[in-house]
């Protein structure tokens, strides 16, 4: 029986973690994630989970302890945001390099300086190259569903990789939405018992984790990480199929909205996709064939399938809620890479929007679609990359 609730994104994800009841959870506060792990700490204190919480003194130690715990042999979770993810950065590579399926919700927030606690994607984009699988979530429901699916993906015996579940700070983490919860038993049955792989605590077969690897082997070790990523997309789709059977909610590698016959489109991650869909409806009502593509799986990035979905359009704006200063936005770079090999490709522009929690309003999407109409009609592109809605 589905339970319909009105809860925040943080509460929904904390509840998913309660239902999964992991063995160890690393807890350290950082806005806007704090409230998620606080809730989980209450579940621990109230005996609603069997999890051993480890109340670390920093995010660096949180990820270090999670790596130790996961290597020891069991299901491990933690969560973070922004500076916390940045502090973990060194250890993120070690979690993936050691092939440990740690699951971590990342409540996306801007990076300092200047200090800003509000939502943007700079944190997770900075962790793009750490070897983690990244699932992105438009709303609380998707964050809840992605969290449950992440365990099956990361712990899959062909994969064994850590997974980040990204959700927008405050906009999703702190907003109350209608969310459908699955039954505890359904979630536990879906996720299944943890399968051990080379546990450190196996005293009969002592193992050494984390050796020094010299140039004779390091290259091959990294190639293995590259190769395993190629298997992830199929697993994500298989898990999504099973999840749909259970929940009735369908997930792919990305979501499209009125894209099939679209002339112009916006590519955008997470919560801003909702606003964009509303504006697409407005433009469709005016007879403009506008559409949207919202990536869900950002690492590994499904280049070919995204190119197939976009190549028929005339002009596309890729919207980035993070910047690579001196370069294009990180999502834009992926979309350009995806389309380079396509036979037909749309004209492309890049807008940087909503940094540090700046609201993304319908008028912003309207501006972008108006520009896209002009571009599709042959107007020259002035600047490939521009900041959207910046004060003069």
């Amino acid at each position, binding site marked *: 029986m589905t339970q319909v609730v009105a809860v925040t994104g943080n509460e929904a994800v904390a509840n998913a973690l309660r239902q999964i009841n992991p063995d160890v959870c690393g807890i350290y506060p950082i806005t806007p994630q704090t409230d998620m792990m606080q809730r989980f700490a209450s579940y621990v204190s109230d005996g609603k989970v*069997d999890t051993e919480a480890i109340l670390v003194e920093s995010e660096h130690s949180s990820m*270090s302890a999670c790596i130790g715990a996961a290597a020891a042999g069991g299901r491990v979770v933690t969560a973070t945001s922004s500076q916390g993810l940045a502090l973990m950065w060194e250890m993120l590579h070690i979690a993936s390099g050691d092939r440990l399926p740690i699951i971590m919700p990342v409540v996306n927030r801007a990076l300092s300086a200047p200090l800003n606690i509000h939502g943007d994607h700079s944190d997770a984009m900075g962790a793009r190259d750490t070897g983690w699988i990244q699932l992105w979530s438009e709303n609380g429901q998707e964050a809840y569903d992605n969290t449950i699916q992440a365990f099956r993906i990361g712990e899959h015996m062909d994969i064994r990789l850590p997974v980040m579940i990204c959700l927008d700070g405050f906009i999703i983490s702190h907003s109350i939405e209608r969310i459908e919860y699955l039954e505890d038993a359904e979630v536990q049955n879906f996720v299944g018992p943890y399968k051990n792989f080379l546990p450190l605590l196996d005293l009969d077969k002592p193992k050494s984790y984390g*050796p020094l690897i010299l140039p004779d082997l390091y290259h091959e070790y990294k190639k293995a990480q590259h190769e395993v990523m190629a298997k992830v997309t199929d697993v994500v789709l298989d898990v999504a199929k099973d999840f749909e059977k259970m929940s009735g909610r369908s997930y792919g590698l990305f979501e499209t909205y009125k894209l099939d016959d679209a002339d112009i489109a916006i590519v955008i991650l997470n919560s801003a996709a909702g606003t964009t869909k509303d504006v697409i409806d407005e433009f469709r009502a005016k007879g403009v064939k506008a559409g949207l593509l919202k990536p869900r799986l950002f690492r590994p990035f499904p280049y070919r399938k995204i190119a197939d979905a976009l190549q028929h359009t005339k002009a596309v704006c890729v919207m980035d809620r993070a910047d690579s200063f001196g370069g294009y936005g990180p999502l834009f770079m992926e979309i350009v890479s995806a389309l380079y090999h396509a036979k037909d490709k749309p004209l492309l522009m890049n807008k940087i929007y909503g940094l540090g929690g700046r609201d993304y309003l319908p008028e912003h999407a309207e501006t972008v679609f108006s520009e896209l109409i002009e571009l599709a009609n042959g107007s020259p592109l002035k600047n490939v990359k521009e900041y959207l809605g910046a004060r003069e």
Partner: protein
Amino acid sequence: MATGLKLKELSKKEDLFTHGHRMCSGCGAPIVVKMILLATDYPVVASNATGCLEVSSCIAEYTAWKIPWIHTAFENAAATISGVETMYRSLKKRGKMDKDIKFISFGGDGGTYDIGLQSLSGAMERGHDMIYVCYDNGAYMNTGIQRSSATPLGADTTTCPAGIAIPGKIRPRKNLTKIMAAHNIPYVAQASPSNWMDLMKKVRKAHEITGPKFINILSPCNRGWRSKTNDAISLSKIGVNTCYWPLYEIENGVTKITFKPKEKKPVVDFLKPQGRFKHLFAPENEWLLTKMQEEVDTEWEKLLKEEQCV
């Protein structure tokens, strides 16, 4: 079934840290590790900070460790083992683990006094059942003898070289053992491989105490100390006999000096055989020798008073 602390019995025990590692000949660290593992009569899992011991003992696809061992990074050996220990407790609670296992972390002074201090402090405060062992050779030896906060006053290192303007390290060592004692953990000790029985007794005692334990062990490095390859034990013995490296323990807040030299030797006896202090014997640097002796005397007096306070 505990093995007696007698050489005859200990020599029959299997070495859990085996030959084939690539530590320099004459290094103190593998001697310390062997003594600790020989003194351990429980199944044991170890973590290791990045450093000499780590890079030389497990080079893919070989390992010198016959126990489960994990290295993740430089500053987090304590956090890493705290995660392993937490998973162990979680699995025990859920009935998935029936063995009694002990947990040890090994770190050099760079990985412990400096970059790993926060991780160590956090793990001690959280109360994990573990022993943290610092093998203190007084500098970042793995990267080529750079100054750490454990480097003694006056020492010549590659980042505080003895020059005309600055005569080596001009700051005294950090007293990490006391800092760990200030965490009010049940057991803190200082040991030296020269006094092997004392070292192994301390390890034995630490294993029998539940909760966080810290042992700081002097570990000569002939490359960094600019000394002979066969003097690790004799130099650490002089370190103890000059009271540069006092052997003591603090158990539940009570200080006990476990070895008092019959005759306290002058600190120059410890400095003279080491090339890193060679420049101190030039007339213009004599003040540093005086200062060093004063510091050793002050610390030793403090320790004697602490012991009497009980």
